[in-house]
């Protein structure tokens, strides 16, 4: 009997030993160190489906593989990319692009007007997925009327027609999704909405290996039409836990952690001053804010909303929670956002003013009760946050303590990402964390998003008497070709939202990265979702 027991045990051990050793060999990234231009980057989840025309892939990865007609520079200017130049018709409804002629997809297919048109048609065929984009709707309107919105007017000339003038079109063409080009050979039954057979783009990098949930390897596209980037290879490791990522960085298993919610202020300060490591920070990009629902019984009252504005100590949030990394935000959009420098007076931090506003609305302090009462009801507001976003949770807890001081009971409820997004779309909230889309989307796409149920904005503003007027002037702003009239419309919308105190701005978010010092010129693109590997190099 003993022999049998020992036999079983021995067999198991040998089996395991064999099983392990036959497993995948070490990813080359760790093996080669020194001068070879390789960077190991970490992300908290897998790159998933990188189909450029869908929204379930990781943005930075899609940005590495696929390119668009135009590129948005850091200062917001539109630069040539796959289109060398473009002409806009008088009425602002027709755009003619001249395409580069020396570009081909990584599967050898030539990039020309016909391929570009095929991509646009694939996007337009999946209208219900891209409904939130104004430009797509305007192009689709042309097709509905029997016209042809996208024409290959020459072998290397593409013409886009819009049903109405829409100046942000160039910006929407430049961002990562959805207007990027994939080789028509990769289409599945003529379109991309059901998936693509291969990820062959024209971008600087090509996806070499993809071990789902483990790591992915990108290598430089050998026949890239432009200047090839210095970094030959980018390895992306999937490390879900933030502490494990920091430890992996400190140990040297990974070289770079990039992104706003990947680097909290405490770890930024630690690595920025740690020997052998450096930190980098971008200009303020987008505004971290809280959205108040104007249709709700309590937050529907303007006095309550303004009281909340006055009761929020943004200085302390910036200094204590973000260690000064994110500056306090007085207004919905920072002054350096286009069309937003309109001289609005911010709500000062003034507890007394807040309490007088609450009393003006009948919310009285009652002896023995911690929170204010009105007609027997307690002043209680619920703030929802995404539980795996550590910073939002800390801010919520801080506000809970602060608002208690003016007699307001702030219940904070954490829920996971998906449920939080569902709640925003359904409008079933009183206060919820929100974030502006950041440059280059601000202000046009961010405001355009308020006209439809994209996130929580549309439903939260329903309580405003002139919501229809606001939506209309947003549309006018987008469609007016005259600069001053456009500024006028923006001024009206931003002022109305500011006076109604629908948005409680907290801090201006800055993109940040911590990395091994062997990595040089780690910079930032205008959009916080892009990781500019092409500019980086290993010392």
């Amino acid at each position, binding site marked *: 009997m003993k022999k049998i*027991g020992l036999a079983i045990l021995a067999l198991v051990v040998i089996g395991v030993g064999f099983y392990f050793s036959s497993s995948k060999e070490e990813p080359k990234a760790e093996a080669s160190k020194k001068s070879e231009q390789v960077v190991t980057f970490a992300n908290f989840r897998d790159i998933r489906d990188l189909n450029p025309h869908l929204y379930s892939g990781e943005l930075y990865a899609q940005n590495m593989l696929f390119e668009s007609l135009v590129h948005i520079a850091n200062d917001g200017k539109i630069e040539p990319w796959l289109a060398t130049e473009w002409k806009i018709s008088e009425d602002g409804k027709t755009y003619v692009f001249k395409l580069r002629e020396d570009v081909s997809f990584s599967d050898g297919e030539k990039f020309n007007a016909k391929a570009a048109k095929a991509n646009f048609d694939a996007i337009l065929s999946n209208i219900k997925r891209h*409904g939130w984009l104004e430009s797509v709707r305007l192009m689709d309107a042309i097709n509905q009327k029997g016209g042809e919105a996208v024409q290959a007017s020459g072998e290397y000339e593409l013409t886009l027609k819009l049903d109405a003038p829409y100046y942000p079109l160039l910006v929407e063409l430049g961002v990562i999704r959805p207007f990027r080009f994939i080789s028509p050979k990769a289409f599945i039954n003529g379109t991309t909405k059901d998936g693509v057979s291969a990820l062959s783009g024209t971008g600087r990098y090509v996806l070499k290996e993809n071990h789902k949930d483990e790591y992915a390897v990108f290598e430089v596209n050998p026949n890239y039409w432009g200047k090839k980037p210095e970094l030959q290879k980018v390895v992306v490791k999937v490390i879900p836990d933030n502490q*494990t990522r920091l430890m992996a960085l400190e140990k040297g298993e990974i070289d770079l952690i990039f992104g706003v919610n990947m680097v909290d202020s405490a770890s930024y300060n630690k690595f920025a001053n740690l020997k052998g490591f450096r930190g980098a920070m971008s200009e303020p990009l987008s505004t971290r804010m809280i959205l108040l629902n104007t249709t709700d019984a309590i937050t529907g009252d303007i006095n309550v909303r303004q009281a909340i504005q006055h009761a929020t100590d943004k200085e302390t949030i910036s200094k204590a929670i973000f260690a000064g990394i994110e500056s306090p935000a007085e207004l919905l959009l920072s002054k350096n956002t286009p069309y937003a420098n309109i001289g609005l007076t911010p709500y000062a931090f003034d507890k007394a003013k807040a309490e007088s506003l609450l009393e003006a609305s009948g919310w009285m302090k009652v002896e023995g009760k911690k929170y204010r009462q009105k007609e027997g009801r307690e002043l209680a507001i619920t703030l929802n946050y995404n539980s795996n976003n550590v910073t939002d949770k800390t801010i919520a807890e801080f506000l809970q303590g602060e608002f208690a001081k003016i007699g307001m009971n702030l219940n904070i409820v954490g829920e996971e990402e998906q449920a939080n997004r569902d709640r925003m779309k359904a409008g079933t909230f009183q206060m919820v964390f929100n974030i502006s889309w950041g440059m280059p989307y601000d202000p046009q796409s961010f405001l355009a998003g308020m006209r439809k149920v994209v996130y929580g904005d549309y439903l939260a503003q329903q309580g405003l008497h002139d919501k229809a007027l606001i939506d209309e002037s947003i549309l006018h702003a987008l469609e007016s070709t005259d600069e001053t009239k456009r500024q006028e419309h923006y001024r009206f919308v931003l002022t109305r939202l500011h006076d109604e105190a629908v948005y409680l701005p907290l801090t201006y978010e800055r993109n940040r990265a911590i990395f091994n010092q062997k990595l040089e010129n780690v910079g930032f693109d205008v959009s916080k979702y892009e990781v500019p590997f092409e500019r980086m190099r290993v010392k």
Partner: protein
Amino acid sequence: MRNYVLKRLLFTLPMMLAISFIAFVIISFIPSDPAEVALRVNEIIPTHEAVASMRESLGLNDPFLVRYVNWLYDCLRLDFGSSYINHNRLVFDEILRSLPATLKLALFSFILVIVVSFPIGILSAVFKDSITDKVARVFMFLFTAIPNYWLGLILMWFFAIHFNLLPTSGATSFVHYILPAITLSMTYVSTYIRLIRNSMLENMQENYLFYARVRGISEVVIVLKHLFTNSLQSTMNALGMSFVQLIAGTFVIENIFAIPGIGRLCISAIFNRDYPIIQAYILMMGLLFVFCNLFIDIIQTYLDPKQRRSM
């Protein structure tokens, strides 16, 4: 022997049916309508017709039983439907892809449990109330009391960063599994030390041990061959259960040590409300439990001569 196994297999059929029914029913308890969730998860605005068409495509309109039978039929064909998030990703492929990592981790820690807890269990039983026994027990109590995510991080900080001996995370080679396996097996090590120690103490008074001593058999042979094998009998079925619990308990460890296992797949499925994956996971775990118990049961009856004849 064979017909005993067949008999037991037949007995598990109703159990498996019940497990599949529960795996199916749990999902229907969920407050929100799966069709709506499937839409939202793909960022499609759940307008009325979109929900209706999704309900149709997911076959949610036909009656409960019909859906259950269809689902069961599909499961037998190993087609667990496709993930809500990405329609061209079959649940079966997802599970197949992520199962090896978890199996490696579970197997590694299972062996670790055996290799560590058996000797310590024997020692603390033989030298009862000696220093080794007291130290082992206190050590054991402490380690069961540490939540494994905290233990994992401490081990990682200590061995990977401080001593720079082991990789912090990832699952590419054998070395990557050492720390996670230690963390995962820690709670089980202490349970088995206790189990073995107590069953050995119990068996110490058996008459055949006295007669073995009378026959002049050396103490070591008495303890290892006679005493230990008999005490092993009682820990055998606990071992079977623990192996499956190891597999089920890995989701926290996989999250920390970045191992692409089935635990993490299930966690993200729960967070993303990807019901087909959750359903398949629960079904698989249930079946694994039943088969493991059966397997251990058969081994146990085979090893015990009294029962072997009765097969």
